[in-house]
């Protein structure tokens, strides 16, 4: 046992002391907010700098009364379409809108000519303007009063309640969606990043040829476990630093732009006190402690399950390039999990959600997607027990491959060989 701790300690220190660890640990929390900041900045600028575009209008129906709006200024032209095109070509205006004589019940034939491809946003704005116009014409034609129509419109807000826990509680689908997706995605990323590190570490020991000295002092299984746990501790440590750093950066940025968080908060409350309180109460409905505890469990369980497999792959090959062929079957369930997440989040209680969140290979990702919606206790228990069994099973299999694989140099390994190693006494 103390030797496993010794190995964990070495794995931890040798990784944490690397310059690259320092670099990623410091840069990641700086780079991500910076990227968001830059994108946000350009979006803001574009919005404010978007200038009014002038559009020529050839209205053959003589029916439209287009007024200047947020995006477009309209200038009518006369004559037929060919003439209008000539005018447009000689002008420097943004586009030419052609409105033919149309049938009110089935309006078609509208066209918009531009010199460069028009953005989807602008086209959709233009569509909306035209639709609104025709709608008004229709209302007139059917002699419907707009006021009457407004009064007919009723707005009902269905509030959703979750009664699965015996007590009614308001639930918010949007928030649950966000929490589920982000935590599930984090686990997915973490398993790839740190699983890959375990594999690299094993290949390094094997190609360094230090491994035989080491396993004459510890059991191969202890070495494998020590490596997996050592990398896990590096991962947890790094995530912890990120959380602290990101929090600090966030607060600093806020302070820099002169936005006082508390002031901001009270402002929103003043603006719509009721709404804000509703949001707050919804946030408090998400079982954060439960989500956090589940996250830690699935994060560790999933990492251990996949970490063992990554270690087994590393032990079977001589170079990272050779590892590719064995990576495929490991990546499939991970990718299936993250793809399945989309449908799971839309239908957290469907059969697909159930199976994906119970099968140990996908459950660490998918269960996180469901957890914020509330999962029946027995399903959660089943999923957790299966994950524990799953990771014991993969660790056992991986251990059997590992103990043989690390001593094999220059042998061509395929799945048949791996199966033989597992069975070997």
């Amino acid at each position, binding site marked *: 046992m103390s*030797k496993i701790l*010794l190995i964990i300690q*070495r794995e931890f220190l*040798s990784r944490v002391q*690397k310059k690259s660890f320092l670099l990623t640990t410091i840069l990641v929390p700086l780079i991500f907010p910076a990227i968001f900041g830059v994108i946000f900045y350009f979006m803001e600028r574009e919005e404010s700098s978007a200038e009014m575009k002038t559009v020529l209008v050839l209205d053959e129906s003589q029916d439209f009364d287009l007024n200047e709006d947020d995006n477009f200024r309209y200038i009518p032209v006369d004559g037929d379409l060919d003439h209008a095109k000539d005018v447009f070509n000689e002008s420097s205006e943004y586009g030419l809108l052609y409105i033919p004589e149309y049938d009110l019940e089935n309006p078609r034939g509208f066209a918009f000519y531009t010199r460069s491809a028009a953005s989807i946003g602008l086209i959709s704005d233009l569509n909306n303007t035209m639709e609104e116009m025709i709608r008004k014409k229709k209302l007139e034609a059917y002699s419907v009063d707009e006021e009457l129509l407004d009064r007919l419109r009723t707005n009902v807000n269905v509030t959703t309640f979750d009664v699965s826990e015996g007590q009614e509680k308001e639930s918010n689908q949007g928030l649950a969606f966000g929490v589920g997706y982000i935590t599930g995605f984090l686990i997915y990323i973490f398993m790839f990043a740190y699983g890959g590190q375990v594999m690299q570490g094993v290949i390094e*020991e094997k190609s*360094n*040829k*230090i491994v*035989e*000295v*080491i*396993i*004459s*002092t*510890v059991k191969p299984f202890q070495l494998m476990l020590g490596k997996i746990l050592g990398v896990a501790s590096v991962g947890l440590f790094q995530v912890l630093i990120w959380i602290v750093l990101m929090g600090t950066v966030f607060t600093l940025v806020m302070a820099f732009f002169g936005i006082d968080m508390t002031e901001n908060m009270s402002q929103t409350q003043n603006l719509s006190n009721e709404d804000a309180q509703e949001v707050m109460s919804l946030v408090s409905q998400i079982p954060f402690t439960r989500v956090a505890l589940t996250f830690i469990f699935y994060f560790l369980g999933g990492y251990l399950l996949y970490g063992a497999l990554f270690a087994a792959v590393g032990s079977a090959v001589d170079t990272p390039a050779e590892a590719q062929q064995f990576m495929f079957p490991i990546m499939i369930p991970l990718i299936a999990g993250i793809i399945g997440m989309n449908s799971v989040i839309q239908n957290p209680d469907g059969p697909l959600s159930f199976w994906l969140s119970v099968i140990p290979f996908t459950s660490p990702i998918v269960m996180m997607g469901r957890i914020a919606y509330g999962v029946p206790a027995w399903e959660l228990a089943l999923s957790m027990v299966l994950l524990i069994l799953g990771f014991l099973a993969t660790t056992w299999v991986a251990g059997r491959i590992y103990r043989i694989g690390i*001593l094999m*140099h220059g042998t061509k390994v395929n799945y048949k060989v791996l199966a*033989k190693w597992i069975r*070997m*006494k």
Partner: protein
Amino acid sequence: MEYTLEAKNISKYYSGHVALEDVSISIPPNSIYGLLGPNGAGKTTLIRIINQIIEADKGDVIIEGKKLNPDHISIIGYLPEERGLYKKMKVGEQLVYLGRLRNMSKADAIKKSRYWTKRLEIDDWWSRKIEDLSKGMAQKIQFISTVLNEPRLIILDEPFSGFDPVNANLIKDEIFRLRENGSTVIFSTHRMESVEELCDHIALINKSQKILEGEKRSIKNAYRSNTFIVEHFGDWSNGQAGFETLDKKSLSENHFQSTIRIAEGKSPNELLSSLISQTEVHGFTEKIPTINEIFINKVKES
């Protein structure tokens, strides 16, 4: 006598082939024991079993009277054929880590590492990474890591392959010194001539079986063939019965080297006096078979 190590009827099978078949060896204390045989004979398998890297399918290993168990890790020093170090680790850290894996305390591991690096004059490199070291220096570190725990049983698998001549000599000297201090050494190699002078006991292994074991001197005696190599000026005509000329080479004009076997009942002195009467003798040595020759003979026999 209690042996330092006894392997009793060890067998190891891999699917499709036999690695070791009923091999027994007995290593006396304070000896330098050569485990000799061609590549693929099963030497490394036996050594891995002794180091508890793999388990024997049949048979027992007894070290200092006790059945092989994890406590033995702390009294063994092992230099495998496939050897290496963590390239990114510093010299000192690496030695201390490997020492602690052999059950040394941290303080003791540091103390011994300091002692050995000083002894081999590489203590300036304590805080340098292995990847910054020359190959020769790394080999010294490798050797230190093998003997750091003052092992009572030192196991060296092909110790001189990959080591430069200076380090190989250094290892030889240190090995002798450690033996004087009470350690037992196992050498494993396929280059039999390289360890012939070092070993006092040997075992020959061929095709997963032990074919010969014992004290080197008595084995060599047993394979003596009463053959002598003589350098002489002037031709010698073999007129007497009981002397058989196996080979005669002319080294230069009137200068010969003859290989002569003496029959039972005749002594080397009789041969010598016969030679002196006819020629001027410049050299007279008994032709003692090398381990390699014994091995080849033994393989032919079986």
